[in-house]
């Protein structure tokens, strides 16, 4: 029942035949996947999905229009990703149904191992010029997106380097230096946080979501851990890294934040930073467009225990990749379009439209015009030179969920000491990532 070979896809036939025929069809449905060899060279119309925020839609529509004008025989149909609870769920459903589009410009690296395991992704390295194209465009960071066997199942596309955004008005109200805020070391950060609560009239100094979704650690623990270790991922060579001294130091920092009430243990139904309920937020450059007009903001790198100079601080990249999905029949066209859409000119257009950072080295040189005109984006562009991604490992999402549950239990809710909880979680995670 599980391997379906016969074709039964004609819509009209089914609608006419009614329920009973559908029943028969249940026993012998199915569709063959595209033949990889042929598909790699095939050209013709393709479908793509892009993210569903207005800026990226505008960018996507423009690129598609341009392409279609130049390549009338290889028409690209773009649409925003069908919105759902998570994009990953939508993509996964599309993979198993065999109707994923050729390219999704919103593929989370954390989900890539799972999609790969499902046979849902095309190994881009199968295209002869892919490795060189990706490595040249992305630079040294490209290695972070390679599968353990060495193939690129994703093309790194754009990052949102995570930094600390702060509200200058609230800092001034609290009597703090709003231009050079004391936020470099853990101790300074804690002290500043206390001042903000006492004098700044805010409910929380900073308000990361204390909820249990697997990805929430990317916006509290993980960036600080990356900064503390100078760019170590959560797991390296099959070994969990977070139960180390550095990891526990970061855990201790957040424990104190929650214990002293500098952050709330409950989720805020709304935008705590936007509504000035909190004085700081952990965000990427997208925040400039969102808060730029209503809040007088400043930005600093995430803190470390002893304080790291900004030009040496690493952080989490919050990157989105482009994936090519195996349901794609005209992969030749898809690959050409993927290259075209990530050309220097189109990357510039992306930066211009969204403020998000194309995964290229030395952004401030490559797009100097843009950063001259929009200097407020420069700190993020400079931060983009020191990024760490989520590790590309088996059971990646399950790993993040395991970590999140352990963190939530120990750091946020104080039910257990991180000294006990983290080594336990590390054991579980090591066995998860080694289950090949």
């Amino acid at each position, binding site marked *: 029942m599980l391997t*379906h070979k016969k074709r*039964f*896809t*004609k*819509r009209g036939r*089914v*609608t006419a035949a009614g329920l009973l025929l*559908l029943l028969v*069809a*249940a026993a012998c*449905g*199915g*569709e063959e996947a595209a033949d990889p060899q042929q598909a790699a060279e095939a050209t013709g119309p393709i479908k793509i999905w892009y993210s*569903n*925020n*207005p800026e990226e839609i505008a960018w996507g529509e423009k690129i598609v229009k341009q392409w279609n004008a130049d390549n009338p025989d290889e028409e690209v149909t773009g*649409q925003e990703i*069908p*919105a*759902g*609870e998570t994009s990953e769920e*939508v993509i996964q*459903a599309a993979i*198993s*149904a*065999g*109707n994923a589009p050729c390219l999704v410009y919103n593929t989370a690296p954390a989900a890539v191992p799972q999609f790969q395991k499902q046979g849902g992704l095309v190994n881009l390295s199968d295209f002869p010029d892919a490795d060189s194209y990706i490595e040249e465009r992305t630079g040294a960071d490209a290695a972070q997106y390679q599968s353990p066997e060495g193939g690129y199942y994703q093309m790194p596309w754009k990052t949102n380097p995570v930094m600390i955004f702060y509200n200058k008005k609230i800092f001034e109200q609290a009597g703090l230096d709003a231009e050079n805020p004391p936020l470099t070391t853990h101790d300074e950060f804690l002290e500043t946080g206390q001042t903000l609560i006492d004098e700044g009239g805010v409910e929380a100094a900073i308000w990361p979501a204390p909820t249990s979704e697997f990805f929430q650690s990317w916006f509290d623990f993980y960036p600080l851990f990356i900064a503390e270790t100078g760019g170590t991922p959560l797991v390296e060579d099959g070994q969990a890294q977070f139960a180390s001294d550095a990891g526990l130091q970061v855990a201790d920092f957040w424990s104190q934040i929650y214990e002293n009430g500098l952050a709330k243990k409950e989720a805020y139904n*709304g*935008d705590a930073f936007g509504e000035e309920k909190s004085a700081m937020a952990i965000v990427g450059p997208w925040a400039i467009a*969102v808060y730029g007009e209503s809040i007088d903001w400043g930005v600093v790198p995430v803190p470390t225990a002893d304080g790291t100079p900004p030009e040496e601080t690493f952080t989490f990249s919050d990157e989105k990749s482009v994936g090519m999905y195996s349901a794609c029949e005209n992969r030749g066209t898809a690959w050409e379009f993927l290259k075209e859409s990530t050309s220097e000119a189109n990357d510039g257009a992306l930066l211009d439209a969204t403020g998000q950072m194309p995964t290229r080295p030395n952004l401030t040189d490559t797009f100097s015009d843009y950063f001259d005109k929009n200097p407020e984006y420069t700190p993020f562009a400079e931060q983009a030179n020191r990024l760490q991604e989520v590790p590309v490992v088996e059971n990646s999402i399950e790993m993040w969920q395991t970590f999140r549950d352990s963190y939530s239990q120990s750091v946020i809710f104080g039910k257990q000491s991180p000294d006990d909880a983290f080594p336990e979680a590390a054991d579980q995670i090591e066995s998860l990532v080694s289950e090949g």
Partner: protein
Amino acid sequence: MALLAALAAGGLLFLFPFYYTIVGSLQLEPNADISGAFPSPGNFSLENYAAINEALNLGRTLLNSGIFTAGVIIATLALGLLAGYALAQLDFRGRGVIFNAMLLVLIVPFQLLMIPLYVMIVRYYGLADNYLGMILPFAVNPTAVFIFRQFFKQIPVDLFDAARIDGASEFQVLRRVAIPIATPAIITAIIVTFIGPWNEFLWPFLITKEQSLQPLAVALANYISNVAARAANPFGAILAGATVLAVPAVVLFVATQRWFVQAQLGSSVKG
């Protein structure tokens, strides 16, 4: 009188969130204080409705909800009355098996079936972005069949036997005797069935990638999760959308209220 007061207090408590939804949907600036629970002319605006209509195309999404829901109700009544009557009043081999299967179906979490169903409907039958694909998994509401079965079960066999002795076929018995007395059950079933597809969000969301085919509940949920953060008064716009989504269901219920009363007064069948 005390009973009436208690009922009134309870009713108001039950209705309060709806009242509050409407009040909130008409506020220009969201106001969570106690004073915000009262409409204030200084803070009144239809802006939120305009905003949500612009974002969702209410006419189109309401039409989609209507088609989805109507398809489900028609299929439920057609197949459900047949099955409910047979399960309650006819004696045939396999009745027990089917009845137990029906109970089982009420229990299975839809989330469990969702992905296999999705694969079947989209991959095998090619019904993605199609009303039929949206309707199929909901086509017969098992609760409605259960209601029919329970209803017909309570009716004495003699009533049907009389028609049978006159030489009516079983189908005629169903049409001429069973269905006419089943109005309360049918109306209950329609309402129970109506809210399933009308309020469902996960399934039509999975099956419709094209925005022009999405029902309102899906469009509103998408709005809440994606677009709202950027709207001027997202809370107000969401409440406005919620009001639009709630009104048809409420209107339907208020309209059928009359039937309820009539059907109960006219019901000549007593256990």
